[in-house]
């Protein structure tokens, strides 16, 4: 898959491929140019050579032609051309009759030269009409191509005939092929060498970027320890980037360490507060309880005392039990826990109404959920605590609004009251354990709400305007619907 999507290839590969492509393109262009240049030159030189040979044959030809010295003509033709790859060479008279031919067996002396095909006929006509030296070619630069030097023979301005010397391009073609092969091999070597160098250079250049990328990925994971500082070799852009990145990483690591330390100290503070709260909240009733028990021990038969103190002892012990229970809920319980039907929430309406008693507090209940949702049992406790908190905030009169609805995958619950509101200083400590503004509060209700919301991976928000009221907003992800 990686191979099929070049955009996600590593920069080192892309860079080296780009360098290779550039090197290969340049190499091939230069190579082709060299080869083309070579071939063109070879072809031209061959034509010149053919003409030169014809002209050198022509030097001694006119006298021999006048004297019908056929043997000299033949020897002249043969000797001049013996060292070259000649396809054919001939001396023709004005009528096109053979005066000498390199292949005398097939082209006997004195007979008219007969061209083998149309092309040959055309060349023959051009040669017979030539009154000035010229080069004729056919077949291009190939194994079968040729260049022909044509020189008319004159004696005392009288036209005697023509010399045709034809050189094959075959040998030069093979030479050119060999040199092309050499050029090609050189280009390939050049490409391989250039590519390897390019790959090495790009790897070297990209290496700091790779380290930066790995470092940033580690930052993304939140792991600051998985990072080695990039060695700085140059002061170019990448060098400067590396320096900056190293600094950022060091600072980030320091910041994280500081954060961790802060979290640790906050935890210690919270632990201290809890410990102090427990000591205070448990110690207070304990002093009263011990007092009651002491009094009862002194007056074991005083029924009136027993009737008066036992409920006090009972109340004090229950308070301690509630505190311990709430602490256990807040500290130990960290599981999503059991689920129940959403209808359990509506049942809290009655419970809170019982709590209100005959006080002038109105509950506006709005449940916008029609579905049979399954909700965690813990949500029931969250809602009950919030309702109880709202009612307690109102003291004797007011309105509590309850609203429940689904938005996206979140179950949203709004609980608001029109009580005195929360002062900004209080707001910061609102969810701290044992923090309370109420006369008889334990300071654990909102702390438990906060902890349970955390456990349920939900969110909690508070909006409050002093003198106007407070609104708590809870959002809990819905995990399951009730089976039909």
């Amino acid at each position, binding site marked *: 898959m990686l191979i099929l999507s070049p955009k996600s290839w590593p920069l080192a590969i892309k860079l080296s491929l780009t360098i290779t492509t550039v090197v290969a393109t340049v190499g091939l262009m230069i190579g082709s140019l060299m080869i083309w240049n070579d071939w063109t030159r070879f072809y031209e030189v061959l034509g010149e050579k053919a003409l030169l040979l014809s002209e050198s044959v022509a030097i001694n030809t006119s006298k021999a032609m006048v*004297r*019908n*010295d*056929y*043997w000299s003509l*033949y*020897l002249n033709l043969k000797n001049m051309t013996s060292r070259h790859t000649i396809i054919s060479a001939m001396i023709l008279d004005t009528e096109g009759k053979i005066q*000498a031919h390199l292949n*005398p*067996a097939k082209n*006997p*002396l*004195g007979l008219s030269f007969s061209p083998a095909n149309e092309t040959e006929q055309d060349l023959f006509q051009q040669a017979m009409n030539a009154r000035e030296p010229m080069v004729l070619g056919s077949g291009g630069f190939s194994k079968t191509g040729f260049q022909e030097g044509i020189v008319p023979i004159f004696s005392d301005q009288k036209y005697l005939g023509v010399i045709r010397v034809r050189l094959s391009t075959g040998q030069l073609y093979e030479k050119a092929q060999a040199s092309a092969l050499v050029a090609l091999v050189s280009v390939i070597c050049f490409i391989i060498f250039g590519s390897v160098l390019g790959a090495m250079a790009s790897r070297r250049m990209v290496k700091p970027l790779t380290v930066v990328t790995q470092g940033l990925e580690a930052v993304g994971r939140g792991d600051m320890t998985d990072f080695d500082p990039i060695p700085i070799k140059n002061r170019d852009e990448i060098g400067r980037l590396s320096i900056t990145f190293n600094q950022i990483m060091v600072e980030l690591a320091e910041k994280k360490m500081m954060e961790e330390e802060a979290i640790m100290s906050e935890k210690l503070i919270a632990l201290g507060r809890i410990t102090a709260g427990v000591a205070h909240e448990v110690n207070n009733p304990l002093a009263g309880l011990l007092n009651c028990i002491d009094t009862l021990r002194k007056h074991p038969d005083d029924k009136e005392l027993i009737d008066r103190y036992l409920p006090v002892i009972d109340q004090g012990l229950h308070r301690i039990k509630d505190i311990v229970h709430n602490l256990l809920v807040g500290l130990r319980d960290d599981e999503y826990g059991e689920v129940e039907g959403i209808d359990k929430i509506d049942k809290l309406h009655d419970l809170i109404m019982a709590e209100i008693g005959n006080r002038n507090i109105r509950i506006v209940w709005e449940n916008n959920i029609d579905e049979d949702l399954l909700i965690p049992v813990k949500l029931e406790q969250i809602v009950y605590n919030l309702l109880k908190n709202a009612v307690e905030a109102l003291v004797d009169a007011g309105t509590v609004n309850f609203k429940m609805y689904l938005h996206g995958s979140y179950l949203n619950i709004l609980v608001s009251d029109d009580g005195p509101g929360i002062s900004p200083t209080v707001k910061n400590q609102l969810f701290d354990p044992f923090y309370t503004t109420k006369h008889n509060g334990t300071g654990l209700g909102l702390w438990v709400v906060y902890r349970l919301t955390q456990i349920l991976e939900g969110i909690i928000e508070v909006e409050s305007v002093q003198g106007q009221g407070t609104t708590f907003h809870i959002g809990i992800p819905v995990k399951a619907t009730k089976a039909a």
Partner: protein
Amino acid sequence: MLKVSFYKGVIVKLTCVLLIFWVSSGNATETDSPIRFGLTGVIVTENLRFLDQWGQYLEQKMGRKVEFVLRKSYREVMDLLDSGEIEFAWICGFPYIQEKSRESFQLLTVPIYRGKPRYHSYIIVPENSPYKKFSDLEDRIFAFSDPDSNSGFLYPVALMVENDQRPQAFFRKTFFTFNHAETVQAVSEQFADGGAVDSYIWEYLAVTRPDITEKTRIIKKSPSFGFPPIVSRLGIDANTVTVMKSTLEKMNQDPAGKSLLAQLKLDGFGGFSDSLFNSIRALASKVQNIGSISSRLVTE
């Protein structure tokens, strides 16, 4: 006075000495001038190294430098003889028997080839050609060796005359190669359909250049003729003639000479009478106006 007469005496003596030197050096120039030896196509003259060795051999034996003079045609060598440019020449039997020759040179010695002072004319054709007899060559291309050659011209012309053919019309085209070896080459390369050559040259080439002779085939062999002789120009000093004759004729008596003869593929040189060339005389008598025939063939 005494002093003056003393100087006079010295000057006279010095003048005498200088005169003696001058005279003697002048004589030395005449006796040291090289003997010039003309060669024609009757032998294969391409091997210059051999000619150097032969020249050195003759110089060593005769005590005088011998220079070989090469010319293209027989005629040019004959002209050199006539004009006194050369002292000796190895020529063909045909120019030798001509009346005019008696005025300028004389027979010196005759090479002995395969035991006899005789050779033949070969009529040759390309090996792969269909020609079997001389008459098959009618209307074909024919290569003559030299217009003054017995085997390379006189004999084939005589053959045509014997058959009542006009030499000028018998062949379609003819040409002279002026060299027996080149006639073999012309036929072997099929530039000519037939040619007339010296049997000695053909056989020599059959050993040294079999690749050429293998491409030719002999379709007619002439009766034997006197081997191309070595002649000396009339008018040169008798001693030189005698020394040259005896040096050549004694070549087969020492190893160096034998080695040179072996390279020439000859047995030696011997003194033979002029009648050896009677068969060529008889042939020439059959052909009238051979000179005009050859000039017509050339300018045709």
